């Protein structure tokens, strides 16, 4: 029997809900509504003149190659970051979960990067890979690689993927580690007694039992890549060279804030919101079924 706390009447529960609802309304529904409204307008930067233009901002986006290009960049970027940050974090978590001396130190060190602000993470990597003064960049040049993220789009993409992945590994590591620790040891021991080798034990027992964590992390990582990597991109490449690292969220910022084109920026953020809602819905609706809880 489920334990339930029952309040008399509606006023007390309503009162208790109000703060939470107020926060959601003020910080989510109002700004989101405002974005939708602004996406139908064309405004000067100072907000002095406003023209209602219907769907023109949206039509402009889809008739210009730049927006579709940014969409493609975002897909490549998010796939790379999600794949690498999840797989590296899982590897590290499996290692750290073993009975080893100083595990606590490793764990703390691995979690630390999460405390670093995205822009600072970006600058750290920029220092390493900056063609003129970066340490790693110099090694690459010695190795005969013409490393130049200022002009080579692929190099720039590698750089932002590295920084974004590095930043996210800690978070994924933490969840994987918690997931691993909740797997009953008896199961693993039983299969070991049955003669299963570590690799086989991992893929047939540990990995499936981790799937709720993995699934959750995929959702969170995609949202991270879509929204939170903006600081890194702004600091490292500013979307360049050309527009090789201009993702959707960076374009929202750049068009709106630097360009003062709030209408187009709002339209782009509405589209971004729809994409993320759709992705999350698809993931929960279809992938969740295959997840073992």
């Amino acid at each position: 029997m489920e334990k339930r706390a029952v309040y008399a009447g509606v006023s007390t529960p309503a009162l208790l809900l109000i703060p939470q609802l107020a926060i959601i309304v003020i910080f989510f529904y109002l700004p989101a509504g405002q974005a939708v409204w602004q996406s139908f307008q064309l405004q000067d930067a100072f907000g002095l003149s406003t023209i209602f233009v219907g769907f023109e901002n949206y039509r402009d986006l889809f008739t210009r190659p730049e927006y579709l290009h940014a969409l493609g960049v975002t897909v490549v970027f998010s796939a790379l970051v999600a794949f690498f940050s999840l797989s590296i974090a899982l590897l590290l978590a499996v290692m750290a979960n073993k009975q080893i001396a100083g595990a606590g130190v490793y764990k703390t060190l691995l979690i630390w990067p999460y405390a670093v602000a995205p822009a600072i993470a970006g600058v750290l990597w920029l220092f390493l890979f900056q063609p003129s003064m970066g340490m790693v960049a110099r090694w690459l040049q010695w190795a005969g690689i013409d490393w130049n993220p200022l002009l080579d789009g692929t190099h720039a993409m590698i750089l932002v993927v590295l920084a974004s992945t590095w930043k996210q590994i800690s978070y994924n590591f933490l969840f994987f580690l918690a997931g691993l620790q909740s797997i009953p040891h008896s199961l693993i021991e039983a299969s070991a007694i049955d003669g299963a080798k570590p690799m086989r034990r991992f893929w047939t027992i540990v990995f499936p039992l981790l799937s709720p964590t993995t699934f959750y992390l995929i959702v969170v990582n995609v949202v991270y890549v879509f929204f939170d990597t903006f600081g890194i991109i702004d600091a490292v490449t500013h979307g360049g060279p050309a527009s090789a690292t201009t993702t959707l969220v960076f374009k929202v910022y750049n068009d709106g804030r630097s360009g003062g084109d709030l209408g187009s920026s709002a339209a782009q953020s509405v589209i971004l919101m729809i994409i993320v809602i759709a992705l999350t819905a698809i993931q929960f609706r279809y992938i969740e079924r295959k997840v073992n809880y």
Partner: protein
Amino acid sequence: MTFRSVFAAAALLAGTSHAALAQTEIQWWHAMTGANNDVVNKLADDFNKSQSEYKVVASYKGSYADTLNAGIAAFRAGNAPHILQVFEVGTASMMGAGKAIKPVAELMAEAGEKFDPKSYLPAVAGYYSTAKGELLSFPFNSSSTVMWYNKDAFKKVGLDPNAPPKTWPDLFEAAKKLQAAGYANCGFATAWITWVNIEQFAVWHNTPLATKGNGIDGFDTELTINKPLFVKHLQNLVDLQKTKTFDYSGRTNQGEGRFTSGECPVMITSSGFYGNVKANAKFDWANAPMPYYPDVPGAPQNSTLGGASLWVMGGKPAAEYKGVAKFFTFLSDTDRQAALHTVSGYLPITTAAYEKVKASGFYKDNPYLETPLKELTNKPPTENSRGLRLGNLVQIRDVWAEEIEDALAGKKTAQAALDSAVQRGNQMLRQFERTVQK
């Protein structure tokens, strides 16, 4: 902390700010860092000490773009500062801002302050004036584009360190020699890729970069940067990039350190680079005017301004505007301008201040500070060289840079890149035209 104590603290704060209202406060938002920040604070301080009626409060608001955005956001929220420092790229946006701004000429006239636009250097006043010659913003920190070069490197390869290359072809040859002598990664470079290679480039060659007098005579301006001269220059850079005789160094001044570190022996960038070079370059250096193509008739013309000006925001009471006007009169004082120039390296903005510093013999020991002035005043400005005024220029510059990067990376031809830069830039100009205050 309880709510009550928060309110108490807020009430206390409100109380203290009211107590200070005996003086009229003038808010001044700016983007100056380091030594320049000190200059701004000292100016405000000196003004405040010189009289008791007004108090100028200077606040740092981040980079130029951040400061402009902060000012715009504050205006939308109804609490704009009185004075906003806006970089030259934001000039057209401010000019198109209608009642959000108060023209400086009008402000001075209403406040009854003596004000003669002719006392400013023509290249300076022209940049911040309407087509009719009405000064809209107050010129503050001005710079121009110059070529910085490493004299030691020149000596090393047998180039005359006192006769730097005057033309682009000469520079290309010199850069090849420098490269062969050990500057393998970079013969020469430019910072601010679009400012140097499109904006200043066009003005210096007396060639329009947009119709309607580079946008000054109307918002219905269209870009012309896909004309042969621009294509030729970009093609030269593309060819030289392949061997790193020219090496691309980013859209802003992020690459300037390649000069002071000794990696690039020639760097074309702002004259405001002076302080950095002086402090960090461990070699003998000098600067010279920007190169030009000798086959272009009229080149070199004059250069145009970089840096920033002070805009007065609209909708403030007359009493406060009077304080702003008094502050501007204070700033224009010849001795103050002369001192500002020699101490900070900013250009003097009035003719009188320039003449005064010149007469004092200051430039004999510091010729580097005069190079940008000589460029600005090289010839009387023409329709093509008095400046440029393009709305959404911050964003348009990004588009130009994107296209130039594509060309330098070999993904597009120079012509295709500039065609695309024109087409995309024009879309932004049309949008600005639609929303601008007329």
